[in-house]
């Protein structure tokens, strides 16, 4: 089975984010980056399927040259080769434009299964995968937490809300978006890191016509969230002192003790 995994590079989860001077995005200089969390789980599921049924895992990432670190890490974990759609601004495309560019870049791969995370940790649109499936004419399932790819058809377990689940069956080829936290992600071994150096990374230019189209949604302004509550911060940096003050406040102000 040929499995293609889409992975996006995003700002490190623990990074302190500074808003850029135009207030349209974050300041990316000096920032550390990592793979969007749920995309990491998509790769892990792809590698597990390959171990069970054989085949090939191809990783595709779209972004600036720095996205190579995500690709190299995926190759070190066990992906066979990679496609890098290179462009400085392609990480900011609307979900429809991003899916259109990706469709052009991977269509000829004719993968049996395309997998990606359920949403990116930066924009969080949660749409690129589904729109890509629609453009490529594939059936899809989102928020998938378990996959059985051993039969002629694909059987997947989807998470619904409030503790409910549902299995769906669909023909291949298909596209799945994967939930975070569903498995233990493997580490790259030293052997894997060495082997990755010989693996192919094909660079592809994004379709310029799509990239230059006006976006159907535009960010006017980025800012720190307005607080819905005025938080009383206690202890002034001393956690123990804060705890003593908190106990008192819970009794006298909040009256919950």
């Amino acid at each position, binding site marked *: 089975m040929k499995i293609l995994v889409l992975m996006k590079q995003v700002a490190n989860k623990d990074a302190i984010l500074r808003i850029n001077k135009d207030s349209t995005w974050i300041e990316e200089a000096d920032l550390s980056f990592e793979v969007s969390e749920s995309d990491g789980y998509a790769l892990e599921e792809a590698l597990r399927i390959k171990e069970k049924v054989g085949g090939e895992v191809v990783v595709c990432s779209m972004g600036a040259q720095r996205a190579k670190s995500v690709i190299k890490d995926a190759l070190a974990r066990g992906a066979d080769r990679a496609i890098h759609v290179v462009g400085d601004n392609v990480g900011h495309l609307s979900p429809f434009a991003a899916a259109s560019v990706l469709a052009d870049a991977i269509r000829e791969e004719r993968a049996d299964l395309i997998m990606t995370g359920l949403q990116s940790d930066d924009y969080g649109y949660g749409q690129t995968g589904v729109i890509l499936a629609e453009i490529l004419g594939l059936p899809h399932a989102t928020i998938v937490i378990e996959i059985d790819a051993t039969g002629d058809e694909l059987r997947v377990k989807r998470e619904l809300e*409030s503790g409910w689940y549902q299995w769906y069956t669909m023909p291949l080829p298909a596209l799945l978006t994967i939930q975070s936290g569903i498995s233990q992600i493997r580490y790259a071994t030293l052997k894997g890191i060495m082997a990755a150096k010989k693996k192919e990374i094909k660079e592809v230019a994004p379709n310029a016509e799509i990239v230059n189209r006006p976006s159907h949604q535009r960010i006017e302004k980025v800012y720190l969230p307005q607080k819905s509550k005025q938080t009383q911060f206690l202890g002034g940096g001393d956690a123990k002192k804060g*705890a003593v003050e908190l106990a008192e406040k819970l009794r006298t102000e*909040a009256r919950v003790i």
Partner: protein
Amino acid sequence: MSSGILVFIEHKSGALNKTSLEAIAAAQKLGGETGQSIMAVVLGSGNQSLAQDIAGYDLAKVLYIDHLKLADYTPDAYATAMEQVVRAADPQYVVMSHTYLVRDFGPKLAARFGKGMISDCIRMNVEAGKVTFTRRIFLGKLDADVTSDAEAPLFVTFQSGAFRPDQATKGGGAPVEPMQVEVGEVRMKPEAPFQEVKQAVDLSKADVIVAVGRGIKNKDNIALAEKLAEVLGGDLAASRPICDAEWLPIDRQIGSSGQTVAPKLYIALGISGAIQHLVGMKNSKTIVAINKDPEAPIFDIADYGIVGDLFEALPVLTEEIKKLKS
């Protein structure tokens, strides 16, 4: 010219998903401030009575689409049916709640109109006819104001809790109009939905909840939180990563994939406050957060916060409360 607002009503075998009332409230606000009428759409099979219930809200009409292939949800059937409804109704906006179901078919529907959705909005603002939607980005760390000058229809989804269900205003009874759609091949075959474990713990009635997140670091440390819960006479709960790691059973999970709670006191220990967690607990009366990261989104909704080491604060807090209680 396109006009009006079409609001999507979600249900499970005829049982209304309450977030659809939030979507109605959002559509009524958008319609009121832009001077447009509001239609609702119900897809299903034999769900006429739900359409009648929805007609009780202040709407211009309710479109009811009955088709055997809409009895069980599939993205193929829903996107195809909705595409025909949207083309026929020709609205300026399609308003939906950002539920798991809408996340599954909504982007597919929007793609058929050459665009994506303005998804997971937490607010909107109308000024001189210009509509600005606000979305959370970077897992809730920042807000982004978003506008669109794309051609109608625009697809907008609102986060659960962005509006309250009781903000949806009732009306004098809207007409229910049946509409025919064609649904072709449906490629996904759904099995019956199920619950993994019978919910052994019902946290929705708890007065006090002590919840732990990633910041608790390891399974053994949960005992510290348990001690605090004990002293307070409360229940122990957790954010998703803790239940994924099986440090606590899944029926203790708070958030969109777990339980929704509103206790008198909610103490969040080492929980950063991802949106998925916040939607499950933000209506708690008093919220306390202890976290080392001063930028953690949990502090946006906390009444009391301690920025610092959870393992320093926790034993002291437990002792102090024990003293106050005795």
